[in-house]
């Protein structure tokens, strides 16, 4: 490609990236302003007197730490369960020989199409009857159930591309089925597993509607609630509201920055075969 074309492309992408990120830049910028500065006519405003108090409000009254730990716990357990269940299901569907496997595979895949919102109402009734509302389990179970179908789908696609020779030599060496799956196959599916981990993380970490339906106890609430609680309490203090939004976005962005390469690799592996 000619150098001039390359420069034009560069400039073009730079402008588009700025436009796309503008809402977030604006959010960060205004989170340092006091509320009366919001009504000035300038689109972006250099915070000459940055309002750190906004972030203190966000941390304290947004109950950031408490909700963050809840989110971290629920998400971690969900990811672990999802990975194990998707791997074992995926393996059983692609390699094992049993009678109803195609029927069960279809049923599990239906889970990708069925909207969770449609199961929200009856699940609320069931969880209430079982005493699962207002418990960590009341979030972990539905989150895992929602994540497993997609995880199984990704893993079956990936497992098909792994030659059976791997297992054959393992069997010759005397390895049993569990060692084959967890010690030989699991590491080989690492790229697909990372995709499952990352998509599950993004879905659970940011999930709001199930959490708001199943939880009412403050001690159990997850990170998105910081923003929701705040909206009422600081209804006219926009600066603090913006600060809590910035603060709750930071963990996900950090995780993304770390796993960015794996996300692309995982999606590449999934998209080409899927």
């Amino acid at each position: 490609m000619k150098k001039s074309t390359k420069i034009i492309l560069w400039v073009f992408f730079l402008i588009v990236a700025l436009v796309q990120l503008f809402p977030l830049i604006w959010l960060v910028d205004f989170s340092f302003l006091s509320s009366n500065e919001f009504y000035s006519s300038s689109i972006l405003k250099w915070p000459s007197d940055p309002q750190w108090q906004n972030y203190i409000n966000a941390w304290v009254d947004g109950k950031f730490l408490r909700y963050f730990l809840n989110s971290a716990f629920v998400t971690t357990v969900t990811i672990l369960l999802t990975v194990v269940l998707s791997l074992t299901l995926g393996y059983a569907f692609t390699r094992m020989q049993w009678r109803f496997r195609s029927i069960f595979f279809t049923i599990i895949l239906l889970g990708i199409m069925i909207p969770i919102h449609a199961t929200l109402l009856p699940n609320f009734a069931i969880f209430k009857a079982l005493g699962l509302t207002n418990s960590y389990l009341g979030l972990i179970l539905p989150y895992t159930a929602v994540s497993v179908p997609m995880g199984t789908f990704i893993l079956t696609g990936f497992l098909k591309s792994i030659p059976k020779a791997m297992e054959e030599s393992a069997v010759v060496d005397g390895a049993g089925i569990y060692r084959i799956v967890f010690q030989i196959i699991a590491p080989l599916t690492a790229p697909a597993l990372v995709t499952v981990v990352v998509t599950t993380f993004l879905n659970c970490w940011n999930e709001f509607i199930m959490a708001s339906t199943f939880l009412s106890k403050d001690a159990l609430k997850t990170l998105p609630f910081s923003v929701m609680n705040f909206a009422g309490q600081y209804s006219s203090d926009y600066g603090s509201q913006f600060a809590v939004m910035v603060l709750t976005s930071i963990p996900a962005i950090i995780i993304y920055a770390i796993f960015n390469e794996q996300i692309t690799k995982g999606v590449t592996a999934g998209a080409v075969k899927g």
Partner: protein
Amino acid sequence: MQKVFNNKTAIFLFVFPGILLFALTFLVPIFLSGYYSLRDTLAPGTPSTFTGFANYTQLLFHDSRFWLALRNAILLGLGFIFIQHPIAIFFAIMLDRLGGKAEKWFRTIFFIPCVISVVVISKMWLSLLDPTFGAFNKLLDTLGLGMLKHAWLGDSSTALVTMLFILIWAGFGWGLLFYYAGLKGIPDEMYEAASLDGASGFKLHLRITVPLLSPVITVQITLAMITALKQMETVFLTTNGGPGDSTQFLAVYLYNKAFSASQYGYANAISILFIIVCLLATYLSSKLTRSDATEF
């Protein structure tokens, strides 16, 4: 070898927990929903009487909101397919040509909105579009387009388009990433052969890239339609279906019927129809798009 793959205990241990969880959180609730939908339940656990298919006939023949919600979902889906996806394909191709470190950097940047919580996205856009302090109207002022200033989400004529715009912004990174991944799977020889035949630039992409991307496009179009049908959180947290049902969606409608209007039975009837619509849409779009998908 066969013995290992036929291990019944292992199959049971591998399959049972997943199927059980799935049954408990999907199948049992759907059956329960079916039960509630045939009754005039006010809230779960309250006494109710069997009303047969009254809820369904009411929904299908006398409830214009239901059809409006469906229409909105279809419009949103078409918006995704005809606006978001062509843009994503275009950007994926451009990004692929950029190459080097810049390619990686821009790809990273474009995905950032996808990792941010829907709660933050919704509240942020409400503020951005706020008629008094929102940046969007200020921007219009600065550009001398003050006459276009508007309560974008507050006016029923612009609310749905605005919603589409927000959702395109929020979901653009995913689309881009999928098409980009698809592009990386196209072997370079394809391009070399095509450029030997004299194709170049735009023509090259239209004739070579887009057809070779068609498996990815097929999957993405199906997903776009399902995403549109399932739309809930962003609408719920911004307009809650309003103003005047202009952004009404099935999931928002059933949620409000169940928890605000105390028509739990009726809401469950919406749930059941909602599931049927989603399965039907998936089936149809896979049937419609499969015929012209090519393998490579």
